[in-house]
C-alpha cells in the first residue's frame, strides 16, 4: 500500500518536474531570442496613446489619443457583449428548436430538422461572411428603411432611439444607439450556429428522460403539456446544463472570428496593437488571459446554476 502511494507521488513529481522544465526552457529560449533581436518584454506600452480609431465602441467613449489599455478594454467590451447576447439568444432559440424537433407534427419536425442540419453543418465562418454580405446589401443611409418612427435600418446598421433620436448627418446616423452591421452579423451567425448545437443538446436531454416517467405522470392525471413541463424538463435540465456551459464557452471563443468581418473585438484590437507596437508576445499573453478569464467566468456561472438545480432537484 505504502509503496504504491510512494510510486504515485514520485510519478506526479516527475510529471510536474517535466512541465516545469519545459516552461523554464521555453521562457529561457524566448528571452535569449528576444535579447538577440534587441527586443524587451514588458507591458509599459499599454499606457502609450493608441493612435488608432475604433469604429464600433459599444457605447464606450474612445478617441485615438486614448491608451492602448483603453483600446483593449473597448475590444473586450465588444467581445463580452457579443458573447453575453449570443449565449442567451442561442440557448433560448436552441431550446425552442430542440423542443419543436420532438413535436408530434411531422411537417414541423421536418422543417426544424432541415433548418438545424443546415445551420449546424455550415462552417461558422461561411455563415458569418454570408450574413455580413447580406447586411451590406441593405439600402444606403439616405434611403434607410424606417420600420418604426425613429428606427432606421441601413447598410450602416440599426439606429435605435435611445436618449435621443438618431438622425442622418452627412455620411452616417448620429445620436441614439447604433448597432453596427458587423455586430449584427457576428451575433446572428454565432446564434444560428450555436442554437443548432444547443437544440441537439436539448433534444438529447429530453429523450434521455425515461419514457416511464411520462407514463407515470400521465397515469397520475397530468396533461401531456403539464407532464412535459413539470416532470420531463426539470430532469432534462440537469443533463443539459453542463453541456450548455460548454456551448457558451465555445461561442465565446468563436466570437474571435469577428476579425474576418471587421468587428473590433478584443482579438482585432490586440492584433492592431501587436502590429503597431511589435509586442506580439505580450498581446498574445493578454489574449490568452482574456479568453481564459471569459471561459472561466461563463463556466462558473453555469456551474452555480447547475448546483442550484441539483439542490432543488433532490
Amino acid at each position, binding site marked *: 500500500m505504502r509503496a504504491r502511494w510512494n510510486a504515485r507521488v514520485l510519478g506526479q513529481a516527475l510529471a510536474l518536474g517535466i512541465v516545469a522544465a519545459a516552461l523554464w526552457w521555453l521562457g529561457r529560449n524566448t528571452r535569449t531570442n528576444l535579447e538577440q533581436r534587441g527586443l524587451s518584454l514588458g507591458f509599459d506600452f499599454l499606457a502609450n496613446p493608441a493612435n*488608432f480609431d475604433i469604429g464600433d465602441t459599444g457605447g464606450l467613449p474612445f478617441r485615438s489619443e486614448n491608451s492602448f489599455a483603453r483600446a483593449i478594454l473597448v475590444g473586450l467590451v465588444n467581445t463580452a457583449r457579443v458573447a453575453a447576447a449570443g449565449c442567451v439568444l442561442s440557448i433560448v432559440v436552441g431550446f425552442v428548436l430542440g423542443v419543436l424537433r420532438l413535436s408530434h407534427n411531422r411537417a414541423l419536425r421536418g422543417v426544424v430538422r432541415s433548418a438545424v442540419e443546415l445551420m449546424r453543418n455550415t462552417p461558422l465562418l461561411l455563415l458569418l461572411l454570408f450574413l455580413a454580405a447580406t447586411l451590406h446589401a441593405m439600402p444606403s443611409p439616405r434611403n434607410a428603411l424606417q420600420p418604426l418612427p425613429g428606427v432606421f435600418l441601413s447598410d450602416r446598421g440599426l439606429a435605435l432611439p435611445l436618449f435621443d433620436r438618431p438622425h442622418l448627418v452627412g455620411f452616417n446616423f448620429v445620436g441614439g444607439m447604433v448597432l453596427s452591421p458587423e455586430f449584427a452579423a457576428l451575433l446572428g451567425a454565432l446564434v444560428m450556429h450555436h442554437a443548432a448545437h444547443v437544440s441537439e443538446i436539448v433534444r438529447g436531454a429530453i429523450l434521455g428522460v425515461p419514457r416511464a416517467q411520462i407514463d407515470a405522470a400521465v397515469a397520475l392525471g397530468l396533461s401531456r403539456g403539464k407532464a412535459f413541463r413539470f416532470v420531463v424538463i426539470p430532469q432534462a435540465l440537469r443533463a443539459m446544463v453542463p453541456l450548455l456551459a460548454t456551448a457558451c464557452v465555445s461561442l465565446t471563443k468563436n466570437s474571435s472570428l469577428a476579425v474576418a468581418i471587421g468587428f473590433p473585438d478584443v482579438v482585432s484590437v490586440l492584433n492592431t496593437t501587436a*502590429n503597431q507596437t511589435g509586442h506580439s508576445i505580450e498581446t498574445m499573453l493578454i489574449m490568452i488571459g482574456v479568453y481564459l478569464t471569459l471561459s472561466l467566468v461563463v463556466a462558473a456561472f453555469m456551474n452555480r446554476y447547475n448546483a442550484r438545480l441539483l439542490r432543488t432537484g433532490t
Partner: protein
Amino acid sequence: MTALRAHRLVACLALAGIAACSGGEAGDAAGAPAGDARGQGATLRAVRARGAVKCGITQGAGFATADDSGRWRGFDVDFCRALAVAIFDDSSKVQLVPYTQQQRFAGLQSGDVDLLVNGSSMTSSRALERSFHFGPVYFYDGQGFLAPKSSKVARAAQLDGATVCVQQGTTTELNLADFARRNGITFKPVVMEDLRGAVDALAGGRCDAISQDGAGLATTRTMLRNPNEYVILPDRISKEPIAPVLRFGDDQWLEVVNWVFRAPVAAEEFGISRATVASAAQSSDPSVRRFLGLEPGITDGFGLNARWTYNVIAAVGNYGEIFERNLGPKTPLGMERGLNKLWTEGGLMYSPPFR
C-alpha cells in the same frame, strides 16, 4: 541537432505567431551552420546552400500575382528575381512566400524568409523599436482614399463622419486617425483582415471610402466590378517610402540587397535598358564599364559574379522598364511615375555611384 530543431518547432507552434521562433539561437552560434539564417554573412551562406532567395511578398495586382501558368509576376517579384540573378544568375531561383500584412514581420523575424519585398513602409519605430533594417526605397507612395464617384467627394477633408474601410496590420489605421485629428474631423473605421473584405464592403456600400497606400488603391480599383465608378482622391495623407525589410545583424546581406536594388535605377540613369545592355558593354565610357562589372574591384565582392549588374539588367531591365511593365499606364493599374521618376526628371529615384 535534428532533435533540438524538432523541439524548437514544437515551441514555435506553441507560441504560434510569436516573433521568438527562430532558425538558430545562442546554442548554435559557435558553428553557425550553413542553414542558419543569423549573424554576419549567414544569410547569403544560407541562400547559397538552399539554392534560392526566400522573399516574403504580399499578393496584389501589379506587385505580386501569379499568372495563368502559376508564374509569379509583378513589381516586387521583379526585385526578388533581380536578387536571384545577382546571386545565381538565374531569375527562377527565388522562393516567394506570400504573407498577409499581419504575418509579414513575424515571418521575417522567425527566419522564414531572407527579406520582405512587399510594400512595407520604412518608419523609425520599425527600425528603432522593432529592430528591422531597411534597404533602399524602391517605391515612393502615400496613403490616399478611393471613393465612389456618386458620393461627390472631391477632397479627403470632405469625408467627415464617413465610414472608412481599412486593412488590418498596416500603418493605415494610424495615418487615418492622425489625419482626422489634424483636420478636426471624425472617421468610423471598419478594420478588415484582408483586402477582399474591404473591397466587398466598399462595393456593398458599407463603407464610404477605402484608405490605403496609393499603389494599393490602384490595385483595389481594378478589383471592383465597375472601376470607372470610383475615383482615387488627390490627397496623400502620409509618406510611404517602400523599401525591402531585413533582420538586424547581417550587414553583408544588407549591402547585397542595397546594391541589387540600386542597380536598375543606376541603369536607367545611364540609359541602359534590357535591349541595349549588350551594346552598352562595348562602351568605352569608364563609368558604364565600371557599372557593368567590366572593371575589377567594383561589383565583385562577397563572392558575387562581377557581371551581376549586367545579368540583372539583361534579366529584369532598368527601373523604368520594371515600373512600366508592371504598374505603368499600359497596365490595368495605369499608374504615373510621379515621385518615382529619376531625380533628373523631377522624381526621387537616385542611385549612389557604382565605383
